[in-house]
């Protein structure tokens, strides 16, 4: 099946630009006529993942593949990795610094929120190598 493939570099040094990729995907889905409820689920889930790449992993690559009935998103970074994924998935668990909290993030809600808004979520991570988060959201 044909799909539209969107690829982005997520700049880990630029907090202000975090969200550019998610915004572009959101705009594309809207233009394609995907329902507003689905567009919002995608936007929130991807944005949480994109922010994580910037605040925890020095940025990386985001790839979104849009099919008629769903979107598949891969967020890939070469950051520090996640030692205990089950623990990271727990609501309220965060290793964010005071600096990140002062920017309004670091409540430990991002990964659980991504799980909530996606139909499938997989995290592959190796400490010292990086993390890849896969999200599938059905329209």
């Amino acid at each position: 099946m044909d799909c539209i493939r969107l690829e982005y570099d997520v700049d880990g040094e630029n907090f202000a630009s975090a969200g550019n990729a998610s915004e572009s995907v959101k705009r594309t889905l809207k233009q394609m006529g995907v329902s507003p409820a689905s567009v919002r689920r995608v936007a929130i889930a991807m944005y949480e993942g994109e922010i994580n790449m910037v605040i925890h992993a020095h940025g990386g690559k985001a790839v979104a593949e849009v099919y008629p009935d769903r979107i598949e998103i891969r967020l890939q970074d070469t950051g520090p990795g996640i030692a205990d994924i089950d623990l990271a998935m727990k609501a309220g668990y965060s290793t964010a610094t005071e600096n990140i909290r002062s920017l309004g993030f670091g409540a430990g809600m991002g990964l659980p929120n991504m799980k909530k808004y996606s139909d499938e979520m997989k995290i592959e991570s190796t400490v010292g190598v990086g993390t890849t988060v896969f999200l599938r959201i059905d329209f």
Partner: protein
Amino acid sequence: MTIRDIVKLLDAEILCGGENLDTEIHTACGSDMMSDVLAYVKDQSVLLTGLLNPQVVRTAEMMDMLCIVFVRGKRPEQNVIDLARDKGIVLLTTEKRLFLACGILYTNGLGG
């Protein structure tokens, strides 16, 4: 109420989006944690916050919010205003503190 009513009730200054003041608003939320806004907010269309960075506008955009009110007389930098203008989001600033600003809007019929 409309965004114009919010401007009056909070004695707010319009930073951008003045062309959208007649938009109807039914619910709002107040928070300095964007994480919580992303995790708990449902259909609220106004965000009251003391935080000023660009991710406040991004968060509002992802949640399809229409208006951001900066409290305690805070003003974001121009790049943040430009970002909001670009997204059609109304930016307001009020001297009132977060609790008070939320209270005034709630008392005047805005839901949570």
